[in-house]
């Protein structure tokens, strides 16, 4: 028995080593980003590199913030990410409620279209979407950045799957008590759906903040770039100034890392919605 226990223990220890190696490999690049960002620029061109900086400095960030466009890009990212998240939450919750709990002609057809289209790769719609947005004169505007994000189908599917499990009796009871449709939705459905809405909201926000391809093509002027597209501009402008670039990368990554730690519960549970029966 004891031999068996020892064997089990050593197996677990070996597992832990393997997990730590894999985990560290994924973590080191992020660590390296932060470390480079707080090094004096001259020290990046040094071999062997300094793995634990002795003289951390904020000079790279100072240089970053001397570029006025950084704040504009941040503002754009904030506006876009918040708008898309808010509109997705409102519209997807409404649509999910309708498809889960309402019966009306074509409701099944609408739901099937949503399901079927979820597998369509984003790049299929890229070129026509660009022409469409151009026809609406929304190139280089917030509308052009925001509306295609709101139209994404996944949130409707997610909310619908969640709401199917809400007991219909609750909704009927509200109706008998004389609550209007909107009041039922606002006072009953939304409070019950808050956990699913939290998941959708957090994931949408992070995805929009991190999105690159669409902001890249739908904006022309430097003033309308989001932070991700702006970082790419900096990368093209000063490709070798690693300390400076890493300070920009750290600055753009930090809000998402903070959100991750604040809401890690949702991240580590949330992605499973819809994938597991």
């Amino acid at each position, binding site marked *: 028995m004891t031999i068996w226990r020892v064997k089990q223990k050593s197996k677990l220890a070996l597992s832990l080593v393997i997990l730590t190696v894999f985990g560290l490999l994924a973590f080191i690049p992020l660590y*390296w980003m932060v470390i480079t960002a707080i090094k004096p620029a001259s020290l990046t061109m040094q071999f062997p590199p300094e793995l634990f900086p002795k003289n951390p400095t904020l000079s790279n960030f100072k240089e970053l913030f001397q570029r006025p466009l950084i704040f504009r890009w941040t503002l754009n990212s904030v506006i876009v990410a918040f708008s898309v998240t808010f509109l997705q939450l409102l519209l997807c919750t409404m649509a999910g409620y309708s498809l889960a709990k309402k019966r009306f002609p074509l409701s099944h057809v609408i739901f099937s279209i949503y399901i079927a289209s979820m597998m369509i790769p984003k790049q299929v719609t890229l070129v026509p979407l660009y022409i469409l947005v151009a026809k609406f004169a929304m190139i280089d505007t917030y509308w052009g950045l925001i509306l295609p994000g709101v139209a994404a189908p996944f949130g409707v599917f997610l909310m619908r799957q969640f709401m199917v499990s809400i007991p219909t009796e609750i909704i009927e009871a509200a109706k008998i008590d004389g609550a209007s449709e909107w009041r039922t939705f606002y006072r009953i459905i939304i409070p019950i759906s808050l956990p699913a809405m939290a998941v959708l909201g957090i994931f949408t926000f992070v995805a929009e903040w991190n999105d690159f391809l669409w902001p890249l093509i739908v904006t022309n002027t430097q003033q309308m770039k989001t932070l991700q597209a702006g970082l790419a501009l900096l990368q093209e402008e000063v490709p070798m100034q690693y300390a400076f670039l890493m300070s920009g990368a750290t600055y753009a990554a930090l809000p998402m890392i903070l959100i991750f730690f604040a809401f890690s519960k949702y991240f580590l549970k949330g992605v499973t919605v819809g994938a597991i029966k």
Partner: protein
Amino acid sequence: MTVWKRVWKGRAGYFFVLPHFGLYTMFFLIPVGWGVYLSLFDYNVFSQEFIGFGNFATLFSDWLFLKALGNTFLYTFGVVPLWLGKALIVTVLLHPFRNSIKTFYKALFYLPHVTSSVIVSMIWLWVFNPTYGLLNYFVKSVGLTPAIWLGNKFLAMPSLIFMQFIMGGGSTIVLLSAAMASIPDYYFEAAKLEGASSWKVFTKITIPLLKPTILYALIMGTIANFQTFSNIYIMTQGGPEFSTISIGYLVYTTAFRDYNLGLASAMSMVMFGILAVLGFLQFKWLGSNVEY
């Protein structure tokens, strides 16, 4: 009841679904249909002329497109199995530990996922730097010869795959862990009592029971990696000697640098077709008896 009566009775349903469905039709369904239509046109700054399948004929005789297609397959079939394998190993190894340890490792693996692909690419451009980069530092310190990772046409693509392998897999680990937690413990205990080896348990119990989740991760991972763009845009611009040009990147340059929108749409359609076939094959291959 006539149709109109039923429509009127269901008006609340329409009221709730139509705001999103309207936007979705405008900015998703119409572009999909329009994309098919555009792919049949010579659509650029100078002309908008219907040419039937002309774009497709052009594409399949264009070495650059074929090169991009090959590269994209190489990248996808390089990344997806590595990353799924990593996710499976991590999930299985993590399973016996208590929850606090599980949460710690899941968070560690998930962290790169909240960092944008632009940022990850910028970091790795620096890590891959031939003279001062971190990777060559490690390579040198274990006594190997440093390499010009992204500057060598034979190494650039494997380097990108390597980077994706190291950074990716976090969301799949979370997904698989949740699926694994739903497998009753007595399955594993019974196998252990019967004297089954760990490998046997893995191949005969874990994998079959995780099949639906693996299938989902496989299809989603294939779709995502087949479209790879940001890392190419930031790190290699398709070079050196087009060794890393991907379909996603070629669609972008064709449409938004050369303004050859019809040809770019045709490329998107080819990509869509391939992904549909791949999804179908994966479903056929793994989808049989996924119920348990």
